[in-house]
C-alpha cells in the first residue's frame, strides 16, 4: 500500500470526518461557542463600543492639551521658535503659538466694536495653510464666526487697528482650537514660526499631546524646555486632572468589560467542557477501540482537541458575525473590528485548549476495561 499524504493532512481529514459524523455533539459544541461569542459581543462588545465613543468624546474635549501663558513683557518671554521645537517631539501631536492681542475694528465702521487680533504660529487646522499671501501689501487674516458678526463684516472685509492704522484683510472663517476657545471673538493672523536668529515673542503656547496618557510626560517636557523662564512669569495649564479622569473612566470601563468577557468565557468553557466530557463518556468504547487498534493517547487527545478547535473556530466566526449584525441592527456602537477578531480568537482558543481536559480523560481510557464483555 502506498504511504499516505502526511500525518497532518490525514489527521485533519479524520477530524473533519469525525465532526461530521458526530452531528449532535458537533452541533452542540458549535452552538455553545456561537452563543458565547454572540453574548460576549452584544454585552462586552457593546460596552467596548460605548467606551470607545465616550472616550473619543472626552478626547475631543481637549484633554490632551497643555497651555503655557507668559506676559510678553515679562523677564524672559516665550518665543515663536518654541512652536517648531515642541512640534518635533514624538509625544506631541501639534503645537501652536499665539502673539499678544491687537485691537481691530471694521475699516468701514470707525465706531464699530473692537475685536482682538493675534499672530498665530504653527498649523491651526489640518486643512488650513500655514500662511496667507498678503493682498496688495495687506496681510490676510482668519476670523471666527463670532468675530465676523461682532465686527459687522459682510464676509471678506478690511479691518483696521485704530492706533497703528495697520489694515488686515479677513480672508476666511476659522474655528478656534479648544484650548483658546475662550478668546472668541478673535482674528488670527498666520505667521511663520521663526526658527532663525530673530524669533517673535508670543504669550501663549498650546501643545497637544498625541494621547491622553502622554499629558503628564508632555507637561514635564514643557517644564524642562522652559526651565530658564522664572516660574512667576509662567502659567502652565494642563488637562492632567481631566486626563486622570479619562484614565479612571477608561480603567473602570475596561475592568467591567473584562469581567463580562471573563464571565462569558468561563460559561463557554464550562459548557464546552460538559459537552465534550459528556461525549467522551458516551464514546468510551470508541476511545477504547481506537487505543486497541493502535492510537496513542496523544493521538486521541489531538483528535478530540482538533475536533473541538475546528467547531470552535466555526462557532466563533459565526458568533462574531451574528453579534456584529445584532449590534448593527439595534443601532448600538460597533466595537473595533480588531476587538471582534480578538474576541473570536480568544473564545475559540480558550474552548479548544480547555477541551484538552476531557480529551485527556478520554485518551486515558483503558481499552481492556472498555472493550471487555463481562
Amino acid at each position, binding site marked *: *500500500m*502506498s*504511504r*499516505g*499524504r502526511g*500525518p497532518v*493532512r*490525514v489527521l485533519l481529514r*479524520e477530524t473533519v*470526518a*469525525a465532526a461530521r*459524523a*458526530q452531528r449532535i455533539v458537533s452541533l452542540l459544541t458549535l452552538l455553545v461557542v456561537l452563543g458565547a461569542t454572540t453574548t460576549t459581543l452584544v454585552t462586552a462588545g457593546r460596552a467596548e463600543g460605548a467606551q470607545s465613543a465616550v472616550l473619543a468624546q472626552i478626547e475631543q474635549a481637549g484633554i490632551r492639551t497643555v497651555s503655557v501663558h507668559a506676559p510678553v513683557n515679562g523677564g524672559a518671554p516665550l518665543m515663536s521658535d518654541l512652536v517648531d521645537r515642541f512640534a518635533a517631539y514624538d509625544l506631541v501631536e501639534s503645537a501652536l503659538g499665539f502673539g499678544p492681542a491687537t485691537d481691530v475694528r471694521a475699516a468701514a465702521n470707525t465706531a464699530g466694536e473692537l475685536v482682538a487680533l493675534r499672530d498665530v504660529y504653527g498649523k491651526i487646522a489640518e486643512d488650513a495653510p500655514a500662511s496667507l499671501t498678503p493682498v496688495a501689501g495687506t496681510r490676510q487674516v482668519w476670523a471666527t464666526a463670532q468675530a465676523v458678526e461682532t465686527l459687522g463684516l459682510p464676509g471678506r472685509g478690511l479691518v483696521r487697528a485704530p492706533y497703528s492704522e495697520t489694515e488686515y484683510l479677513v480672508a476666511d472663517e476659522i474655528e478656534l482650537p479648544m484650548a483658546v476657545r475662550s478668546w472668541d471673538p478673535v482674528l488670527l493672523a498666520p505667521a511663520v514660526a521663526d526658527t532663525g536668529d530673530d524669533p517673535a515673542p508670543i504669550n501663549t503656547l498650546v501643545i497637544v499631546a498625541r494621547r491622553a496618557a502622554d499629558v503628564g510626560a508632555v507637561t514635564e517636557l514643557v517644564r524642562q524646555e522652559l526651565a530658564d523662564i522664572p516660574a512667576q512669569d509662567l502659567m502652565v495649564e494642563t488637562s492632567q486632572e481631566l486626563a486622570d479622569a479619562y484614565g479612571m473612566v477608561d480603567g473602570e470601563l475596561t475592568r467591567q468589560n473584562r469581567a463580562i468577557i471573563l464571565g462569558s468565557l468561563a460559561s463557554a468553557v464550562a459548557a464546552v467542557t460538559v459537552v465534550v466530557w459528556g461525549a467522551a463518556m458516551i464514546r468510551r*468504547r*470508541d476511545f*477504547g*477501540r*481506537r*487505543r*486497541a*487498534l*493502535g*492510537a*496513542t*493517547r*496523544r*493521538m486521541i487527545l489531538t483528535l478530540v482537541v482538533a475536533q473541538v478547535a475546528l467547531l470552535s473556530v466555526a462557532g466563533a466566526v459565526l458568533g462574531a458575525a451574528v453579534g456584529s449584525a445584532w449590534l448593527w441592527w439595534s443601532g448600538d456602537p460597533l466595537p473595533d473590528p480588531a476587538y471582534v477578531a480578538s474576541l473570536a480568537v480568544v473564545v475559540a482558543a480558550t474552548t479548544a485548549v480547555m477541551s484538552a481536559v476531557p480529551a485527556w480523560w478520554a485518551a486515558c481510557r483503558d*481499552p*481492556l476495561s472498555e*472493550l*471487555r*464483555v463481562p
Partner: protein
Amino acid sequence: MTTAPRLAIDDVSFTYPGGSEAVVDRWSQTFVAGTVTALTGPSGCGKSTRLYLLALLARPTAGRVLLDGVPVERLSDPVRARVRAHRFGFVFQDAVLDPTRTVLDNIVESVLYRHEDPATFVGRAVELMDRVGVEVPLHRRPAQISGGQAQRIALCRALLADPDVVFADEPTGNLDRATADVVMGAMRDHAAAGGCVVIVTHDPTVAAQADVHLDLGPQAA
C-alpha cells in the same frame, strides 16, 4: 508452513487491579507464524484475558511477553500502541464498530493509527469484504447492518494492513455455520500467507479448524 515463534508467553501471571485471585497463573506458550491457534475453555477461565495479554492491551503482573523474541511487556504505552498499530489486527467479541461512521470508514480506520492515508486502502477494503462475503453498501452505518455483517466488517478491519498477528475474540459468535466457515477460511488464508492467528472461541467446530488447539480448562488457570 514456517515454525518460527512469532509470539511467546513466558511464565506470565495476571491479576486484575483490585482483584485477589490470579486470572492467569504462570502461563507459558508459543505462537508460531503461519498457524491458527484456538483458545477454548469454559467462561471465566481467562481466555479473553490471555488474548489481551498477548495483544499488549494488558500488562502481566509477572512474566514476559516476547514478540519475535524481544520482550515487549514493559514497553512504554506509546511504543505498545505503535506495535499494535503496525503489527497486530483485532476482531473484538462484539465487533466494536464506530456507530457514527460508515462501513468503509470502519474498515480503513486501523491504518489511520499507522499514519497512513485510509483513502488509499479503499480497494483493499472492498476486496476483503468480497472475500468474507459481506455485501453491504460502503456508506451504510453499523446500525443498518446485521450483527454477522458487523463481525465480518470487524474482520476486514483486522486484516486490512496484513498484520503479523491477528487476535480474534469469538469471531464467529454471531454467525451461521456457512458464514463462520467463510470467516475461518479468511483467517486460515491469512495464516497460510505467513500470519499468526490467535482465536478465542467456544465453538468446537472453529477450534477443530485451528492448527493448534489450547483447551484452557480449570486446570489451565
